[in-house]
């Protein structure tokens, strides 16, 4: 029976190629557009580290201006970054299970041999726990030891790409790199790692490629590393040396801590408050106590990582899908009305309501499936367009299996819904209609 229905529906579709084409096109365009925006939204709204997102916390401390909050529109919020020296001290105390401080910088890599040219590479200046905390996958070696942090030893972890460029992709652990006159020991090379959004630094962009290498936080003092990310200050301080800059109230360091239980969390907040109280006694932190920790998803919300435009597009494109479905229903209804005499003849010849209904639904499903497939290719095209328009790293937004099944599912289900009413209407045609009206 299904085969017969399939044959009938193909025949019926061929009989009205324009109507059928329109229906398929309507579904395809609707699916194409809504899947494109849904994928972008899903990517932006995704959990970059689902296995640990509820045990990793960003830390904020309120060292801001006593007479003005950090953000006038959100006076309850502390600055979204911390000072270099607070981060340094919190790292030294090491109250959490793991913790890391970090900022973006860049260094000039001098050529290994005589032929190469020096070039600049982006670096994340961070501490040893970074790699374990964030589940960073390694191809070769590992991160540096905590002792390297303490002793400010020049060590470096490379990304796959940079290792490719410098060492042709070979195991470079144990090799040396000269950067700004200092020799760095390569301790590891990480594998492709693309947490999306880049949750540990939404402040400087949630959808960038990750930095090309990682070096110890403690080198900041030794090498006078400056931040390539954003820094914010409120206090007029006299700064005549790098040391004074590091000890200023300017905030430019991101601080993360790993805490496993509610108890640990509560303890950690108590610890932060105690730290700030102590600093208050030194004349710092003049605002009321306002220390917070945010888990990964809260941190994404805090920074509104999902761009408003993405939400607007998502909303509008689903309205678009509604238009496409309305078109499909209208077209199907019209088409079925056109089949009235044929249907009533079939009914007269003994087809039951159910048989007729199934026949329509098969036709609808075939249309939905074709529309969905074409829509998927349109969505793939649309995503490439978006990557191009927004200058996103290639492959940042892609249709994964979940998205593909969602697309086909939405296409079939929605065209079924679109076809249900027309099919029901068709079943209501009495078998005698054919014989009575001409």
């Amino acid at each position, binding site marked *: 029976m299904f085969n017969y229905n399939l044959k009938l529906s193909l025949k019926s579709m061929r009989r*009205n190629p*324009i*109507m059928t084409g*329109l229906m398929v*096109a*309507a579904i395809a*365009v609707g699916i194409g*557009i809504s899947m494109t925006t849904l994928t972008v939204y899903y990517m932006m709204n995704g959990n970059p580290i689902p296995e640990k997102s509820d045990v990793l916390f960003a830390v904020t401390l309120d060292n801001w201006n006593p*007479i*003005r909050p950090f953000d006038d529109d959100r006076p309850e919020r502390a600055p979204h970054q911390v000072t270099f020296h607070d981060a340094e001290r919190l790292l030294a105390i090491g109250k959490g299970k793991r913790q890391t401080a970090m900022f973006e910088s860049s260094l*000039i890599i*001098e050529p290994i041999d005589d032929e190469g*040219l*020096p*070039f*600049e590479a982006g670096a994340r200046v961070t501490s040893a726990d970074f790699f374990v905390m964030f589940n960073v996958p390694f191809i070769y070696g590992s991160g540096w030891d905590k002792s390297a942090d303490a002793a400010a030893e020049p060590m470096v972890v490379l990304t796959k790409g940079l290792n490719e460029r410098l060492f042709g992709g070979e195991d470079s652990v144990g090799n040396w790199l000269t950067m*700004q*006159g200092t020799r760095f020991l390569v301790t590891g090379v990480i594998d492709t790692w693309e947490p999306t959004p880049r949750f540990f630094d939404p402040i400087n962009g949630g959808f960038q490629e990750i930095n090309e290498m990682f070096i110890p936080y403690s080198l900041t003092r030794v090498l*006078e590393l*400056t931040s390539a990310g954003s820094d914010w200050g*409120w206090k*007029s301080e*006299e*700064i*005549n*040396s790098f040391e*004074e*800059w590091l000890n200023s109230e300017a905030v430019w360091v991101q601080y993360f801590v790993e805490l496993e239980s509610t108890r640990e969390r509560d303890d950690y907040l108590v610890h932060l408050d105690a730290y700030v109280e102590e600093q208050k006694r030194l004349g710092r932190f003049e605002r009321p106590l306002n220390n917070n920790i945010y888990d990964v998803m809260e941190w994404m919300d805090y920074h509104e990582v999902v*761009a*408003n*435009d993405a*939400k*607007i*597009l998502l*909303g*509008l*494109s689903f*309205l*678009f899908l*509604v*238009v*496409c479905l*309305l*078109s499909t*229903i*209208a*077209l199907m*209804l*019209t*088409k079925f*009305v*056109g089949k009235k005499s044929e249907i009533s003849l079939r009914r007269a010849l003994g087809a039951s309501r159910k048989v007729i209904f199934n026949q329509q639904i098969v036709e609808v499903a075939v249309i939905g499936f074709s529309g969905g497939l074409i829509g998927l290719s349109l969505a793939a095209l649309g995503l490439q*367009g*978006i990557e191009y*328009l*927004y*200058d996103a790293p290639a492959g940042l937004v892609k249709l994964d299996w979940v998205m593909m099944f969602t697309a086909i599912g939405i296409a079939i289900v929605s065209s079924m819904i679109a076809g249900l*009413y027309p099919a029901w*209407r068709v079943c209501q045609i009495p078998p005698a209609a054919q014989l009575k009206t*001409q």
Partner: protein
Amino acid sequence: MGLGPMMSSLMRSKTGPLLVALQIAVTLAIVINSLYIVVQRVERINRDPGLDVDNVIIAYVRGFGENFDVVDSITNDIILIKSIPGVVAATVSDHVPLSGSGSGTGLRTVPDETIEPVSTGYYRWGEEGLDALGIELSRGRNFFPEEVNYILPASDPPTPPSVLVTQNLADDLFGEEDALGKTVYWGNMEPSTIVGIIGHLHGSWVTWDKLAHVVIQPGKPANTTNKYIIRVEPGMRDGLMPIIEQKLGESNRQRVVKSVRSLEEMAARSYRRDRGMAIILSIVISLLIGLTALVIVGLSSFHVTQRTKQIGIRRALGARRGDIINEFLLENWLITTVGAVLGIILTAFVAYWLEVSFELTRLDWRYLPAGIVILWVLSTLAAIEPARRAASVSPAVATRSG
């Protein structure tokens, strides 16, 4: 010819026309709101930045190595750049307008910390800065060369006596009063005098609402990365970019040339979200209008085929071609109008959603009549060909077909 039989016909098969009306309604809601966003974005992209975007080149260099002297390097680089034929002016600057990266500060008109300062973008560049960006000074004077000194990193330079401000900043600081010659106070309560006023200039962050607030200090920032702003003769930019890159690269081996780019490209990059949104929404609008028009054509054509007999009967009973065309167009017009009425309501809902959830400015009501007129024209255009075909049905159909 009244609405009579056609209306009854419409009412009896109400689901079909109602669906089309609904489709038109949602189309209207999407098209109007999207169009409004597109127009706003395009307006934003096309704002006058107050500088010569087309003829400016930005070069980024960074020194390394132990013997590197940043002040020497900058001095020599500027001399080198200005020796290249076609270069009009060049300066070193801490930031580049429209680039997305910059500094911000707050200024006050009195040295009182409790007063809310006026936020503004700020730059430090040399006496050729205005010329290098093609900025026009509307009143006052530019920096004197002797006011411009090198500023070393991690040093606290003395507050300069003279600054330039944009008219927009001056207005927000001093209101009606003339700002020229007035004193402004920095965060550390040190004073500077406004010596010149720039008619109009955009700062670094194109999405910031105080984009036109700019204050400029004299200075040659000697940071780790040095940014050179270079203006060239019209039409020579693309030819000169590789030359500049090559000459800078050859002149000093203790330094890397990070990039040489046109300001136009950098500005385009800053506006890429707006451009992206405008383009995507334009595509959405076109697809939507195309789809709705095609559906109307498809449905009307189908109706003509379905109603051939009926049209023949009407013709046999005395309907003129014009009557048939009118009937079709009127039917179509009715559906469109019902759709438009529903559409206005829906448009208002969507506009409200955008306004409340995303803080977009309120929809300009004039878009509504415009959208409705567009839909009318569109749906009439879409229906006219099928209507013509309907009118060409021979009245003999009444007697001929069984």
